[in-house]
């Protein structure tokens, strides 16, 4: 059964869609990363370590920005897929981004994003087929519950420098759910302001 999600994000041209999949217990992270680094064109995906993802919205936000930048012709990285990973970053240090957000040999939970564009269209079936073939792991549904189970909050707080959020209950963050929501908001904002905060 395919749990790959295909999304037409708001305010993008109609012929750009994103396909998103989640995998747990991935065993071949090393070789997946190698393929990516080798520039193998069959492996043009955004391969993201799911532990640094707090929610669906965060992942889609990165996808939106990257595709928007593609459409406006202002990619800063090699292609739209590397740009998605870059769009997760709070700063402009591209090299650091892949170390922090991208797949590494130790990645066990993986978020995969594929962009279908007019010049390079990919159907959901084609993507699902290729992923099933290439990823040694268990596919899960792309939803917030699944993702929450994979999030490494401490790591996220460190990367986005959000250590103080939620630590003071009087600042209005009453419970774990609200705290998570607030973190998610701040992460989205940091991504939006990539490199421009001072």
């Amino acid at each position, binding site marked *: 059964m395919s749990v790959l999600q295909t999304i*037409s994000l*708001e305010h993008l041209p109609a012929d750009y869609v994103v396909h998103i999949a989640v995998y747990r217990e991935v065993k071949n992270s090393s070789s997946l990363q190698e393929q990516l680094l080798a520039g193998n064109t069959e492996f043009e995906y955004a391969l993201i370590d799911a532990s640094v993802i707090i929610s669906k919205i965060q992942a889609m936000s990165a996808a939106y920005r990257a595709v928007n930048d593609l459409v406006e012709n202002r990619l800063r990285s090699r292609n739209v897929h590397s740009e998605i990973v870059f769009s997760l970053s709070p700063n402009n240090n591209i090299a650091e981004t892949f170390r922090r957000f991208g797949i590494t040999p130790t990645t066990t939970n993986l978020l995969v994003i594929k962009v279908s564009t007019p010049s390079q269209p990919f159907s959901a079936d084609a993507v699902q087929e290729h992923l099933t073939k290439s990823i040694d792991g268990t596919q899960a549904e792309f939803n917030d519950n699944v993702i929450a189970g994979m999030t490494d909050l401490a790591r996220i707080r460190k990367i986005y420098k959000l250590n103080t959020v939620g630590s003071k209950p009087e600042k209005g963050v009453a419970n774990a759910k609200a705290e998570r929501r607030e973190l998610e*908001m*701040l992460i989205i*904002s940091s991504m939006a302001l990539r490199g421009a905060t001072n």
Partner: protein
Amino acid sequence: MTSILQYPLPLPPILAHPSSTAPLLITQGAEALLYKSTYLLPSLPCALKYRPRKPYRHPTLDTRLTKHRILSEARLLLKCRKEGVPVPSVYAVDEGQGWLMLEWIEGEVVRVRLNEWLRWRREKGTAEGEEEGELRGLMERIGEAVGMMHGVGVVHGDLTTSNLMLKSREHAEVNDHAEGGEENLLAGEVIIIDLGLASVSRFEEDRAVDLYVLERAFGSTHPRAEGLFEVVLEAYGKSFKGAPIVLKRLEDVRMRGRKRSMLG
């Protein structure tokens, strides 16, 4: 609140791309247009603030200014939000195209709610000064919110009752104190909006002027509530360490009074 468009208004190019619902123009200021739209998904509403090109400015200057202002506003919103100041979240920024997408705040501006409340009381026949608990509560919350913003080193630059919102409660959080059920008009978290003229400052003068502009806004828009502005100031005075000094400075600003003639 929609606006009747007399002259064709520029849509930001982003709104030309397909989306589930048509954009809704909310307000049209001197500087920017505010639309209600969606972010990423049809179910996630957002506020889109768009600064259109100004034909009188040299294009280089125009682009430079627009980019700077969009980024500045976004930065200040993030800075405030990070420190717990109640402002909308930033969703996306495109300074090159002149727009910013913000969290949609469901609710209404204080200006409207306050006038509704005052009118409701008048119809009920309640005398001024009676049963003012709700109004006092609102004033306190306003003072606290502004104090929090000043406390983190940001001044708003345009504090009026149109730039303060009362956020509707999400249905999941039904609470106990439904007073008589019906007219909880003044309830809700105070959210400060429109940081288009905001700046980083810790000067008493800037903070005092912020308060003075708000005071005069109450005076000219809600004269019947003006008497309770001292409740705002009292709550403000307790909100951060440097606040009492600002209140002292406010007295000087009042004396100088130029801003009085500006809004009077």
